[in-house]
């Protein structure tokens, strides 16, 4: 057993599962948006902003935003533990990634919910 305190859920299985679930959410969101744009070639601003104002779309977008945070944390954590061998530099890199993801999530919520 290798002990880790900087990984997302500390358990390898949990991280693995979360990465797969978040990947499914991200694919579903991407497919939905591409599909929506293809099916509405004459999209107006009102229609587009109306889509993002509906509660279901807000829930879907928030879920996607959190999935981006989780997915990128697990992925970048993995990359950092592969390639960055100095503990100090690795921890700094992980902290910067964590901070950027947190900022994106908070900022994203602000944008989505029009706060």
């Amino acid at each position: 057993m290798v002990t880790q305190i900087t990984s997302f859920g500390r358990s390898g299985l949990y991280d693995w599962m979360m990465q797969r679930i978040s990947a499914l959410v991200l694919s579903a969101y991407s497919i939905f948006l591409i599909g929506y744009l293809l099916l509405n070639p004459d999209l107006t601003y009102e229609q587009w902003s109306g889509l993002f104002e509906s509660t279901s779309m807000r829930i879907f977008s928030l879920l996607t935003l959190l999935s981006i945070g989780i997915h990128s944390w697990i992925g970048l954590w993995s990359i950092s533990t592969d390639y960055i061998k100095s503990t100090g530099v690795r921890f700094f890199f992980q902290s910067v990634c964590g901070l950027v993801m947190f900022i994106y999530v908070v900022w994203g919520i602000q944008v989505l919910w029009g706060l």
Partner: protein
Amino acid sequence: MLVSIYRYNPEKDDAPYMQDFEIELPAGKDLMVLDVLNLLKAQDPSISYRRSCREGVCGSDGMNMSGKNGLACITPVSAAAKNNKLVLRPLPGLPVVRDLVVDMGQFYKQYEKIKPFLINETPAPAIERLQSPEEREKLDGLYECILCACCSTACPSFWWNPDKFVGPSGLLQAYRFLADSRDTATQDRLSELDDPFSVFRCHGIMNCVNVCPKGLNPTKAIGHIRTMLVQRAT
């Protein structure tokens, strides 16, 4: 034929280098790479490599032949050489002791970690622990591993974290004991593997399957371990 060999003698050389040898191979015969090495050693006795059984059973002569890991004794020169040139290097990712001889310490440490022996807490029966033919069949494709390290040293995840990631060979053996009906330590074995490195550093690129000289499939075994972990935790 031109044979280029990785040379490094830490007592003499500051850095490793490639040495080229020109060798006349007997016509009408497809020699194995090990035979070529033996011919070269007759020319230059300082060339170092491990070999023993010369028939793909002992796993001593694992090396990198023109970019692909394999056993020199069962790889024909025709398959390993490219453009009439054969490039021989030690297994990648492990410290070089000399020329084609690597220090397998880290590889064996990972093997030791998975407890490669049957654990059974129940009292031993009078004769032996029996298995049905179906239970025995589950070990096929697992027990044949000869620990040559071709797979683990072809795996980037093992290159970057040889101290934390068990590696394809160790995990194939881990599953060999997880799948064994006579072993009662399944839960403890799974608990030991449930961290972000031991199993989950495998990203399924299947380099291990590509190079295994025994035709085994460590990626599939790793998949089975993952399934066992998921089943236990959901």
